[in-house]
């Protein structure tokens, strides 16, 4: 380890550039991991919420609702279907606006918001977005579904939102993955170049060691240790970057996605990220230096 630290002290700028590139890679990997996790959470949130809402005509009977629910429950792709009465709708409304007296007393075209002016509905959770059309078809057949002035059944399903979100999540995943792979390759090549340069500059020492009977591992050990210092140091700085970024962006993110992802981000999440980045840093630094050192040592006599 002393030799490795001495090597770093001898060429601090090379060490800095290696640590910088590993830090940047680790920061991007960390941010990408958090964004992937968050987008997955958001997607899950949308997918688990009632995804189809069918508004019912006033004057429907309990039997009619029961019939519709049983036909929905026998429809393929339906996970859950529940009836929301006018009173339930008012409760949901109150929950959504909180105790704001202004909103609660909002005067609409029909007067102050009361249970009477809110429509009853059926809320359906699908097993997957692909079932939406099938479920909508069942609802279209029902006579108790409210009809718009344009003659369309009032059935809301956020097919576009879900598919857009899925598209964006996949794009983030693919884009992030490409970026991470590219940066990982850059980090590996940087460490390999630096270690190769260092080994090359100590050719005399290495050939002397070999003539003295040193095993290859004895010769490459200090270079592996040096590289691991770059990997772990870079991973720690990258993680610190992620930690600070999340910490400072929490006031911005919390009001926007706070209902989906809990803020502040838990210590467990940061600890997991720390462990993952350290392992990743260790692996890329070890592989790159092992490759560079072994290649050189095998070549020399």
């Amino acid at each position, binding site marked *: 380890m002393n030799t490795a630290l001495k090597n770093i002290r001898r060429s601090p700028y090379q060490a800095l550039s290696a640590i910088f590139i590993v830090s940047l890679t680790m920061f991007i990997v960390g941010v990408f991991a958090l964004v992937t996790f968050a987008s997955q959470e958001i997607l899950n949130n949308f997918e688990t919420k009632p995804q189809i809402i069918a508004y019912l005509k006033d004057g429907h009977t309990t039997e009619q609702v029961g019939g519709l629910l049983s036909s929905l429950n026998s429809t393929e792709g339906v996970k859950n279907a529940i009836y929301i009465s006018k009173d339930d709708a008012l409760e949901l409304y109150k929950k959504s606006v909180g105790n704001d007296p202004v909103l609660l007393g909002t005067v609409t075209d029909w007067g102050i918001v009361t249970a009477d002016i809110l429509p009853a509905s059926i809320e359906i959770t699908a097993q997957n977005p692909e079932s939406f059309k099938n479920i909508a078809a069942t609802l279209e057949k029902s006579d108790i579904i409210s009809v718009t002035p344009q003659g369309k059944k009032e059935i809301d399903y956020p097919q576009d939102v879900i598919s857009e979100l899925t598209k964006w999540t996949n794009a983030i995943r693919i884009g992030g993955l490409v970026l991470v792979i590219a940066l990982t390759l850059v980090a590996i090549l940087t460490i390999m170049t630096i270690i190769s340069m260092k080994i090359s500059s100590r050719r*005399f*020492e290495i050939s*002397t*060691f*070999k*003539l*003295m*009977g*040193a*095993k290859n591992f*004895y010769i490459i050990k200090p270079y592996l240790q040096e590289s691991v210092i770059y990997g772990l140091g870079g991973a720690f700085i990258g993680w610190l970057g992620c930690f600070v970024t999340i910490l400072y962006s929490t006031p911005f993110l919390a009001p926007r996605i706070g209902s989906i992802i809990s803020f502040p981000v838990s210590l467990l999440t940061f600890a997991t990220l720390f462990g993952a980045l350290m392992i990743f840093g260790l692996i890329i630094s070890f592989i790159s230096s092992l490759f560079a050192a072994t290649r050189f040592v095998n070549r020399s*006599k």
Partner: protein
Amino acid sequence: MIDFIHVSKSFPNGDVVLDDIDFSISPGEFVIITGKSGAGKTTIGRLLIHDLVPDKGKIVVEGMDLGKIKSQNIPVLRRKIGFAFQDFRVIPDKTVGENIVVALEIAGYDSKKIPEKVKHTLNMVGLSGKEKLFPGQLSGGELQRASIARAIAAEPPILFADEPTGNLDKETSLEIFKLLQKINSDGTTVIIATHDVTLISLNIGSHIHLEKGKIVKIEKRSEEKSEEKEDKEEKKEANK
């Protein structure tokens, strides 16, 4: 035991460095190989540690046939031969002590025993108190002693000293020669490759003289002395 059996070696440019060399060295022997520059003295050393491979012939060192040696056994062979290089090859940015530590680490010494061993070795070669000096701070004679110290630190059974008195004044040369004799008296087989023929006049040890890659003279010392050395080597082994 070292056996060179009809060994020949030439370089890629066609120069014949060794031509049908045949000799053997017994354990504990003190051998001086003489010859002019380019006679093939250093090549014998390099063949001995498998830094070079002969074109023809067979080399056997401590029971290892170098023609059949596996690559993973080359470090094992090299650890059996302490090599004091002509250009010293001491690591310039390591202190004298650190250079010896390297040799001991390579030999697999217990790290706890290394400091004591370094002290003992430096004392043996007359470099006590110079442990923390860098090679650049040493005189030619001291540098040669440091090189020898590193070669013998791990107590290899064989020491090959390549031009150990080259570029040294007569007095220092004699001191180095005496040091090598002292090492030999402890049971180590010592082989000296030198162009300094004055060492022969001291009439110590066996003598092999090379000319243009051929052995022109072999003088073996008395069997009686060899036996005496073998006894010392046995005692040394027992002490280990």
